[in-house]
């Protein structure tokens, strides 16, 4: 049902820092503008264009994985000594990208940063899709993916149990918990908006589907109270969880004794890197989406600038990690560690290493300038560069640490094959396909939370007297 009446209330936002929502919006206009993208507005031609490309890429992944199932992991470039190739690089890259979503939705909520409101929904969706892409890789890397359920502890006739001293088993728990909790968090956040869509949908199918998903939400004050409590508790749980996930991923490396992997700085430095790449991905997606859907009122320059600042900080932490790692590789006096670091910087993969330093450390220093932080084109380019840089970082960690084994007789090189690339590019297709579907069928900005940050949502303190 579309109400004919117009709202007379006007939102006035004070001057000073750029607002998190453009002035002039009301409860009604916010609701209409965001829900119209899903419900009434015609699907933009750009959506079809992007979706078809993404869908085609996803099919590349399908082909690559099918061929993998037929032939085995021999179709990849992995070998002895480089037993972990693209699959693990991509796994770490994707799971890291997911971290920004949880950070935005949980940590910034706890820190009472209201600017998160217009980007959290879509960042959370990004988390889910990134985790979905990440989850594929370790499973197909096992060689016999149809037996992946062996990773879970369950009573079986073989009488064996997973090896709980192995970080790979921790990973199974960390990633599956992360996927579950992210899904719960996202869904709980969606419930009030699904109710809005249910009430505003014109089509019977829409009404039924959104109605079922909304579970009969009616906005009761008692419900809201428990809902908010649950949401805050979930945020409190998701915050240590997100740190733990990339920590466990870093343990996959650090708990082993391979030079280049076994170093104690890995947990915090992996977490910072994950947030770094995640924010880069949020910017990569947010900048075009706000332009295409005309959402500049909701995703303002303030959001972009804040995200750029987070990138600058986490990028510097990552740089700190590189520095300390290199220093201790020398200071420790272990000749294998020393050689590993020297080989990274001057060996056969040195160009990749220096490219990564350029992408992750040198170029992002431009973000110190406010002019760059508020220039969407420059930000978009830097975000893409950081995405690439963080992928290269994982490549360097995985490949250069392995390819020079302790004995020179077992040294080797890693050359990715067409199937490695096809799987990687294919998961980008999967990610984008899911993202396009999300943009089309669900509100990409939390409508209920946007209403709550409008100035007119403030209840006066002394209103006993009417």
């Amino acid at each position, binding site marked *: 049902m579309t109400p004919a009446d117009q709202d007379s209330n006007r939102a006035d936002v004070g001057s000073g820092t750029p607002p998190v929502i453009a002035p002039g919006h009301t409860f009604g206009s916010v*609701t209409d503008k965001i829900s119209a993208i899903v419900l009434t507005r015609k699907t933009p031609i750009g959506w079809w264009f992007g979706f078809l490309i993404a869908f085609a890429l996803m099919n590349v992944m399908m082909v690559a994985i099918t061929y993998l199932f037929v032939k085995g992991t021999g179709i990849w470039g992995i070998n002895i000594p480089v037993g972990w190739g693209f699959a693990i690089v991509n796994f770490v890259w994707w799971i890291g990208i997911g971290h920004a979503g949880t950070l935005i939705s949980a940590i910034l909520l706890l820190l009472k940063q209201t600017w998160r409101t217009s980007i959290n929904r879509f960042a959370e969706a990004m988390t889910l899709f990134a985790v979905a892409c990440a989850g594929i890789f370790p499973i197909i890397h096992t060689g016999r993916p149809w037996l992946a359920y062996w990773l879970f502890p369950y009573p079986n006739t073989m*009488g064996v149990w997973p090896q709980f001293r192995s*970080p790979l088993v921790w990973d199974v728990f960390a990633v599956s918990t992360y996927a579950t909790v992210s899904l719960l968090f996202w869904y709980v956040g969606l419930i*009030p908006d699904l109710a809005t869509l249910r*009430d505003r949908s014109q089509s019977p199918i829409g009404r039924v589907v959104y109605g079922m998903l909304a579970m*009969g939400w009616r906005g009761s004050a008692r419900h*809201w109270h428990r809902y908010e409590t649950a949401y805050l508790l979930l945020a409190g749980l998701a915050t240590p969880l997100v740190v733990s996930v990339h920590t466990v991923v870093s343990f996959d490396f650090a708990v082993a004794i391979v030079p280049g992997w076994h170093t104690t700085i890995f947990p915090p430095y992996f977490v910072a890197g994950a947030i770094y790449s995640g924010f880069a991905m949020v910017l990569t997606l947010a900048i075009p989406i706000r332009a295409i859907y005309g959402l500049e009122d909701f995703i303002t320059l303030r959001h972009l600038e804040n995200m750029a600042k987070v990138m600058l900080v986490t990028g510097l932490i990552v740089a700190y990690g590189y520095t300390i790692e290199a220093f201790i590789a020398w200071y420790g006096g272990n000749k294998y560690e020393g050689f590993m670091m020297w080989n990274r910087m001057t060996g056969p993969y040195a160009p990749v290493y220096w490219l990564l330093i350029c992408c992750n450390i040198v170029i992002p220093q431009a973000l110190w300038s406010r002019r760059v932080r508020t220039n969407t084109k420059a930000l978009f380019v830097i975000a893409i560069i950081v995405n690439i840089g963080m992928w290269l970082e994982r490549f360097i960690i995985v490949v250069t640490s392995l390819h020079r084994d302790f004995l020179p007789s077992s040294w080797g090189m890693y050359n990715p094959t067409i199937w490695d690339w096809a799987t990687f590019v294919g998961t980008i297709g999967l990610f984008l396909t899911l993202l396009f579907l999300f943009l089309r069928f669900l509100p990409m900005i939390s409508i209920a939370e946007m209403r709550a940050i409008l100035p007119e949502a403030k209840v006066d303190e002394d209103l*006993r007297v009417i």
Partner: protein
Amino acid sequence: MRISSTLYGLMAEFDDANALVAATRRAHDEGYRRMDAYSPFPIEELHEALGSHHSRLPLIVLIGGLCGCVGGYALQYWAAAIAYPLNVGGRPFNSWPAFIPVTFECTILVAALSAVLGMLALNGLPMPHHPVFNVPRFALASRNRFFLCIEVKDRKFDLESTRRFLETLEPREVSTVAD
């Protein structure tokens, strides 16, 4: 008209959050208890105005978390030290440092599930149908309108006097809610 079987309550519609909070406080002062307020976004003051108490949800989540923590460790201890003891590089069967990550993940998983399922259960959701949806304009409760509904079951409820009371709150309109 036999109101008790066909009527759920009376519903007043308001334009903004302030009016709804003020109306709810007035209704509470008036002695109404079986009522609920509906808004398109959470309003902290409404909950207090309705005279509701603290939620039990944090306790449920705490218990859930503790169960996950103990259960997670117990699972690993049982698997690694009792059911399938395996010497891995001379590490003890009960390798507690290595069991912390999974214990932590289990704690968070069960606590998060308790938070969501607990919230839904306490709210009585999913509940696909509810009498308030019988009011056509209630669809605006998820957009920009604010509603106060006093139920027939309230001891003070009387179709005439309650309607008169609601009219004094200067609502946009007052409608009957069919059961």
